[in-house]
């Protein structure tokens, strides 16, 4: 590993960050599930089942988000500095929805919890809806750009007084956010469908997964159409200059027939497949193909944003301030050291999967409602 060039390490770390990002989006089934509490659970016992089912997993999603932040900080510190310090409000609001989430599972049903159960359920709903929409809008700016400039010392000045919230007013970014929320709801419904062995809930989650897929389609089509037709932020590999290229993201998809176009199409088909076998074939395992599909789609999206001489965090205000995986990365030494650390990832994934399997071997049933934790 010590022999990798800086360029190779930057590509490797964009891959690793993308994998963590893709796993995070898969794990937002927790957030999606949180927005479904009121519709798939009708009685207090059903609600308890749903919340306990999600409650076993919420910290995994949360930790993956923290790792995503940490990995970006370590591998692409200029992105961390530029986006977090620049698009201040959008990140602060995302953060707030996650603070609310972190206490809600634990406190919702505890006596004397000061705010009442419904408030904590509302917190979970806010995290699953507003939180995810804002994350989607922030990812949308990878393609639409933001208005910032960097000084000679790489210090950021944000040019829009809304400090990042302006992202949510761009139709592409907003569509991206809403699409992500529907995806989270599809995943949430499929996860609950798999995890809770109770006929009424299974019937409702089955329908919810399908309905949310239908709702998501117009947004998906709009995003895909925009993505292949829009101007993209290309980088000249010779001199590092950033310029607008029409159809850049389409070119990127085609330039990466397997991990670009291939992942995107295979991913979308898998997402639909998982929902369809749940809705029409009475399968309880739809979460797996759909989950894998979501991972593939997110990977394709992040690959076309960062690879093939593309600026992944472009500035529409000053093109030359745009961030690329080359100019935003850590040093050769740090990326190498971090790569050694990253060797642990398969081991960590292995114990997470093992424990997940242990805890989910026996599905939640009505009998569990009385004894569960949350």
């Amino acid at each position, binding site marked *: 590993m010590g022999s990798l060039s800086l360029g190779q390490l930057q590509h490797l770390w964009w891959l690793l960050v993308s994998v963590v990002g893709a796993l995070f989006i898969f794990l937002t089934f927790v957030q999606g599930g949180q927005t479904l509490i009121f519709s798939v659970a009708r009685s207090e016992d059903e609600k308890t089942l749903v919340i*306990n089912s999600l409650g*076993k997993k919420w*910290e995994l999603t*949360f*930790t993956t988000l*923290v*790792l995503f*932040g*940490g*990995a970006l*900080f*370590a*591998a692409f*510190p*200029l992105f*961390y*500095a*530029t*986006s*977090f*310090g*620049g698009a*201040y409000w959008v*990140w*602060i609001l995302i*953060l*707030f929805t*996650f*603070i609310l989430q*972190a*206490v809600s*599972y*634990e*406190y919702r049903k*505890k*006596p*004397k*919890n*000061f*705010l009442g159960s419904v408030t904590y359920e509302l917190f979970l709903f806010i995290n699953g809806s507003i939180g995810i929409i804002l994350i989607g809008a922030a990812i949308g700016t990878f393609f639409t750009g933001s208005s910032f400039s960097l000084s*000679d*010392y*790489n*210090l*950021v000045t944000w040019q829009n007084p809304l400090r990042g919230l302006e992202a949510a007013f761009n139709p592409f970014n907003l569509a991206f956010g809403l699409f992500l929320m529907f995806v989270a709801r599809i995943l949430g419904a499929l996860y609950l469908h798999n995890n809770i062995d109770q006929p009424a809930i299974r019937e409702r989650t089955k329908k919810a997964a399908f309905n949310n897929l239908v709702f998501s389609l117009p947004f998906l089509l709009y995003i895909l159409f925009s993505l292949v037709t829009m101007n993209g932020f290309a980088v000249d590999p010779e001199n590092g200059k950033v310029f607008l290229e029409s159809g850049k993201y389409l070119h990127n998809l085609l330039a990466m027939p397997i991990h670009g176009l291939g992942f995107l199409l295979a991913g979308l088909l898998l997402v639909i497949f998982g929902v369809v076998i749940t809705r029409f074939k009475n399968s309880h395992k739809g979460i797996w193909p759909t989950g894998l599909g979501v991972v593939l789609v997110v990977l394709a999206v992040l690959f076309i944003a960062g690879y093939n001489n593309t600026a992944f965090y472009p500035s529409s205000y000053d093109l030359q301030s745009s961030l690329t995986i080359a100019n935003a990365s*850590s*040093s050769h*030494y*740090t990326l190498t*050291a*971090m790569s050694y*650390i990253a060797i*642990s990832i398969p081991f*960590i994934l292995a*114990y*997470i999967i093992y424990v997940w399997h*242990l*805890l989910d071997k026996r599905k939640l049933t009505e009998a569990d409602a009385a004894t*569960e*934790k949350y």
Partner: protein
Amino acid sequence: MGHIDLAQVDWARAQFALTAMYHWIFVPLTLGLSILVAFFETIYYKTGKEEWKKITRFWMTLFAINFAIGVATGIIMEFEFGTNWSNYSWMVGDIFGAPLAAEGLFAFFLETTFFAVMFFGWDRVSKKFHLLSTWLVAIGTNLSALWILVANAWMQHPVGMFFNPDTARFEMKSFWEILGSPVAVSHFVHTTSSGFLLAALFVVSISSWFLLKKRHQEMAKKSIAVAAVFGVIAASFVGLTGDESAYTAAQVQPMKLAAMEGLYQGGYNADMVAIGIPNPAKKPGDMQNEFKAVVKVPAVLSILANRKIGSFVPGIDDLVFGNRKQGIISAAEKIEAGKRAIASLAIYKTARKKGQDGVAAGALKDFRENQHYLGYGYFAKAEDLVPNVPLVFYSFHIMVALGTLFPVIFIGFLLFLYKKNLAQQKWFLRFGCWSLFLGYLAQQSGWIVAEVGRQPWAIQDLLPVFVARSNLTTGTVQTTFFMFALVFVVLLIAEVSIMLKQIKIGLEGE
């Protein structure tokens, strides 16, 4: 650097202090209680007695209530480096990001994954695997402390790095040097053992309340026995590493040590202050008294600071105005050198742009000669380099006094337990109840010493906090400060209210 809005910097500092101090209400308890719960469960596993399972589950419930807010506030800390200290994130991200990523990877997943087993696994996994999970949560929480304290220690004593003039940032040179820094080691042991101590106080305090209320008396005594022994051991580690922390501060942050002791005029055979009231009007270099009232222990500070009897300990005046005899250069000279470093860096960058290699090489040479004082170049006055002395002084002395008291409390409890008359010691039990608050006071004081004591630096000698900031307006940071304050207050009320109720409910089925 352009115009710097100092009011904005102060609000950003206030916001960071608020989140850090709030976060630190919950974290030390998590560090220690995770281990105590693992002890309780180990006893249950070994003896197979149901009462130990009940004890384990009772403390585990309280652990989870506390843990939730720790998690919630932890994510704020991480992201605030980016949101409120974005220049910092860029300038040292190459070094600082790695321990944060390692923390997520090595520690948080361990905590999270096995936390789920701890609470959902009682009837889904074997007894042995459950015990293992509880221990892994304890190890995970303390591992996360390791990584974040390595990161913090690096800010106090930057090692294993160099300044890259082309990227205008600090870059990592040796990962191992950062991990093995003496400041990191003493920081880690001091902080985690203080967390163990707090958790021991927590268990002792709540158990004392049960004894006073004549409820769960057997459980309370058993809990106290385990916690007090743990507390005595933790307290001795806190003491030993506290001494080590003071020593490393003297070596690498002499200004912090001087502020801790309120020492203006340095000297040989320096005295240590046992108790004192610093004179708040005292300024560096003036003729006023350092203290309004003071009791000193002769010559001890020299031993503490340098581990050498009679050695010289510099005071604030020596550090500000220099002391030729001791080879200490004045702050004014350091500021001068820092300004040269900044200026030659600017010349270097312009020359590189224009392709004037000769000019660039000369400027770089000049920069290298002055780079150790880079951070000083941003200051106008030498006095700006002195932290808030009374605050650091009081915090340090409160921490030390309480650190001396805690082992006495634990030994007292063990003694009464041994004599089998603990339940009759009403006054002592009442004191035991309230001692928890002293624990929290000591925790907060410790961090005030560490963080206020190193002001005005974000990175010691290299990066002042006002340069580390994000380019935000004062109003923006003010707004988020009050948003955080409001949420924190509401969540604290909820947490305390739930915690008290759960304590009142007591053990399951009794």
